[in-house]
């Protein structure tokens, strides 16, 4: 009896120890986590005292001085490039280690290692799309360049030097919540981070949907509803710009493609939000007589922010701007002489090829009139708590065959089964050198040289210099294609469908100092139809670009505030175009009291998506429902994934084809007209707002419907921001949605000394226990910009310094 009692007394404490030391489901090991000596309480930073630090890192060549200003932005002063990038790695890791780890793990398909089998499909998708394959090729390209190699190795050494200083007491809190450890940084992770940007910005592909549409509706309707150029456009390169080159011969369109479009042969989607604005004004339009440049890239908003502000100062370089944690250099910013920024081109650089396999072993495929061998690549997916899963991916000369069976994974909806993927991100590349040269650039020639190193994701690079030059270039490595090559799934057996080389970089569309005195881009069409090469058949809707150009065209004596206020402009060209056509169709006699009141709001509306506008909420839901009413019965068919025609095409139809057959809902016996759909949509909008908020009152205001907030990168509850009651919408310059929008707002006034202004919705520190975690969110929400401290030396008094870090060997 006593023996049993004694045994019990030993076992119970042991059991308790295991219970409170083990991660159960998503709950972290309770007492390990709550332990104030080593658990999360240790991550609570002292808000009231800042300390100076000294650290010795082996491999540093000379001394490095880093000063932190009152927003925790590091200003690095090094004596050579190697130390500069080592220091960048060190401080970025100091503030954002977990973010860098998480984002590169995600890119590499290694999330299951941390969270277990529930992430297997997520990881498999990354492996099948060839993310690691692409990163390996990209790294080869970078390591072959001695400068890029030096940058990457130094950056890696800096990160690892920081990791060495950590013990489990001071791991970033997410490691404690998810119960795992930081691992050493390796050069491939820099490549993975860059590939992940490509995945976010250049993984758009609708050809699976388009091919299904072509099969269902035939070539005539497909051409009509999905045209190759919008009916209203304001292209990035102004209309009338001459092309000063003789283009390469365009590859011939294969006869089989033309036959498919004429219906003889049977052949075998991107959310709005992936976009940005940038523009530059020449001195002729500014009060100072010197250029002003602005950029606001639109990305998913997260805490910590995708961007990290930094200043890099070393012999030959003194640049300030935002960097991507995980890659050395400054991506968007300025130096003494020039400023630059980027928006997404969204070129057609991702294609699917239908493959004819010999048999179910998939060892051979038909191409160029013979059987060719596939390459097998084994991807080992480590899973927490389970055996590794070995995934076999078959590679053709085009690229990997992504899926043989449809997985249960939303992101894979636009991937056709059994098809091989050709993607620009699989190429060798050396993007880091573009930013290396931009960071050190003095003038237009330097800018043009920097662009030649860039592969993907293609960006509209805007530029301004103190020599009063402005320019914009939709730039990247573009495959040389025949028109519409890639709009539909391609024939993988026929060499005529391969990519036939590249557009020479010097022939990428570009304009310098146009007569109108400004350049701009908002992801609209790169050019007018006179450009000889095919970049894509569809770009972003033109409304943002048009509004930007309308405002810049009449701007005189512009200063900081002119530009700052433009970045937060909530006026909607879409509302301007659409309201006159649909408002008259609403029949007030069929409306109830709430709906009549709603109609009066819309009638008085100034077309601004301001925070307090009730009409904006009504209009937004109304137009979304109208689009649904027009297209859903035709393009939402179970088993046949398709997509709707573009917003531009829909608006064109509403304006120009009021009696189109497409308004009829084929599911009903009644023949609907545009007026029927408009009225149903209007009532639907009012009813849904009433269901959600009750009768019309302040709660109907746009900010309350939009619910903008900045969540944590891994969506950990409590670690995000509160709801921000602000305006903006995707069809306006201030392109804010629920949690996507201007991830960085920057305005640079060039001059004898550049005056930089910027803000992002977040903070420099990735530690939720730091006061620098989200300290800039409110300013961003209020449309304000901070004055950026552009220091000339580490003792420059113009900056407010709160702490220093010295790195020595």
């Amino acid at each position, binding site marked *: 009896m*006593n*023996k049993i*009692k*004694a045994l*019990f*007394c*030993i076992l*119970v*404490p042991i059991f*308790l*120890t295991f219970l*409170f*030391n083990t991660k159960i489901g998503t709950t972290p090991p*309770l*007492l*390990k986590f*709550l*332990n*104030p*000596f*080593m*658990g*999360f*309480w*240790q*991550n*609570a*930073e*002292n*808000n*009231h*005292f800042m300390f100076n630090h000294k650290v010795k890192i082996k491999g540093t060549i000379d001394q490095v001085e880093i000063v932190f200003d009152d927003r925790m932005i590091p200003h690095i002063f090094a004596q050579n490039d190697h130390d500069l990038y080592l220091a960048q790695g060190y401080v970025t890791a100091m503030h954002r280690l977990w973010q860098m780890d998480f984002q590169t793990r995600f890119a590499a398909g290694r999330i299951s290692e941390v969270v277990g089998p529930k992430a297997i499909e997520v990881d498999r998708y990354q492996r099948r799309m060839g993310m690691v394959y692409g990163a390996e090729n990209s790294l080869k390209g970078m390591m072959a360049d001695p400068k890029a190699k030096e940058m990457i190795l130094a950056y890696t050494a800096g990160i690892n030097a920081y990791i060495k200083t950590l*013990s489990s*007491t001071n791991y970033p*809190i997410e490691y404690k*919540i998810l119960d795992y450890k930081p691992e050493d940084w390796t050069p491939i992770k820099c490549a993975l981070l860059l590939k992940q940007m490509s995945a976010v910005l250049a993984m758009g592909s609708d050809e699976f949907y388009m091919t299904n549409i072509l099969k269902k509706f035939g070539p005539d309707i497909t051409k009509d509803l999905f045209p190759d150029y919008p009916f209203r456009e304001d292209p990035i390169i102004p209309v009338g710009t001459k092309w000063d080159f003789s283009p390469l011969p365009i590859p011939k369109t294969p006869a089989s493609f033309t036959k498919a479009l004429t219906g003889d042969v049977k052949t075998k989607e991107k959310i709005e939000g992936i976009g940005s604005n940038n523009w530059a004004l020449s001195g002729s339009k500014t009060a100072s007589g010197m250029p002003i440049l602005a950029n606001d890239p639109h990305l998913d908003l997260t805490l910590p922010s995708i961007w990290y502000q930094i200043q890099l100062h070393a012999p030959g370089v003194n640049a300030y701007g935002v960097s991507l944690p995980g890659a050395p250099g400054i991506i968007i910013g300025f130096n003494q002489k020039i400023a630059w920024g980027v928006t997404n081109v969204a070129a057609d650089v991702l294609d699917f090829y239908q493959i004819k396999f010999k048999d179910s072993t998939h060892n051979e495929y038909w191409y160029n009139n013979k059987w060719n061998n596939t390459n097998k690549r084994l991807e080992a997916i480590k899973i927490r708590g389970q055996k590794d899963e070995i995934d076999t991916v078959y590679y053709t000369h085009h690229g990997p065959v992504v899926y043989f069976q449809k997985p249960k994974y939303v992101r894979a909806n636009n991937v056709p089964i059994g098809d091989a993927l050709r993607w620009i991100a699989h190429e060798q590349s050396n993007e880091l050198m573009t930013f290396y040269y931009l960071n050190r650039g003095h003038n237009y020639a330097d800018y043009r040289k920097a662009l030649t190193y860039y592969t993907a994701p293609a960006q509209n690079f805007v530029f301004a210099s103190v020599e009063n030059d402005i320019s914009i270039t939709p730039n990247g490595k573009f495959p040389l294609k025949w028109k519409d090559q890639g709009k539909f799934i391609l024939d993988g057996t026929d060499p005529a469908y391969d990519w036939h080389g590249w557009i020479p970089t010097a022939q990428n569309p570009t304009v310098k100092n146009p007569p109108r005195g400004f350049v701009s881009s908002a992801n609209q069409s790169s050019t007018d139809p006179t450009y000889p090469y095919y970049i894509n058949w569809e770009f972003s809707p033109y409304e943002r670009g048009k509004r930007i150009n309308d405002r810049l065209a009449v701007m005189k004596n512009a200063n900081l505030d002119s530009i700052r206020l433009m970045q937060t402009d909530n006026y909607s060209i879409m509302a301007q175009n659409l309201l006159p056509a649909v408002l008259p169709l609403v029949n007030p006699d069929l409306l109830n009291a709430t709906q009549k009141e709603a109609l009066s709001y819309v009638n008085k509306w100034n077309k601004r998506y301001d925070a307090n506008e009730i009409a904006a909420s009504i209009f937004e839901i109304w137009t979304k429902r109208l689009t649904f009413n027009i297209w859903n019965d035709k393009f939402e068919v179970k088993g046949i994934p398709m997509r709707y025609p573009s917003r531009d095409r829909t608006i064109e139809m509403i304006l120009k084809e009021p009696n189109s057959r497409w308004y009829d809902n084929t599911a009903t016996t009644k023949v609907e007209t545009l007026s029927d759909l408009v009225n149903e949509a209007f009532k639907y909008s009012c009813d849904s707002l009433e269901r959600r908020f009750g009768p019309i009152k302040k709660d109907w205001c746009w900010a309350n419907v939009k619910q903008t907030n900045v969540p944590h990168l891994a969506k*950990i*509850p*409590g*670690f995000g921001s509160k709801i921000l009651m602000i305006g903006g919408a995707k069809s306006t310059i201030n392109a804010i949605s629920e949690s996507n929008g201007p991830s960085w707002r920057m305005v640079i006034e060039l001059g004898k000394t550049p005056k930089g202004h910027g803000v992002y919705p977040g903070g420099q520190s990735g530690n*939720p*226990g*730091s*006061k620098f*975690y989200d300290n800039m969110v409110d300013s961003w929400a209020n449309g304000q910009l901070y004055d950026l401290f552009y220091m000339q030396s580490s003792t420059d008094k113009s900056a407010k310094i709160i702490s220093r870090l010295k790195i020595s060997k």
Partner: protein
Amino acid sequence: MVLPWWIIVVVAFATCGIIGKTGKIAFWQSFLAIFLLWVGYALFKSLPNDNILANRVAVMTGVKLWWALLLVTGLLSGLAAGISGYCGYHFRKAMLIKKTDEKIA
């Protein structure tokens, strides 16, 4: 050198095993000691932080308020120590009775 959290289990077990007077005292003194130690040190870290982190983690765990999280820290750790202390005391008692059983036998 920082020790892992379960040192409280070991220390409570051993201490009450050696000098524990009754099961009740073993439980409550262990509980109180660790409760005060953990809550005290947590406050020492959290107050200069203006409880920013504690508030966020409180929302994450569902207890919503930072001092509720503090209470949970104290209660759970106290419970673990208390139970271990109680087990330590009874373990010794069980071993002693065994010894006397053997002596008699």
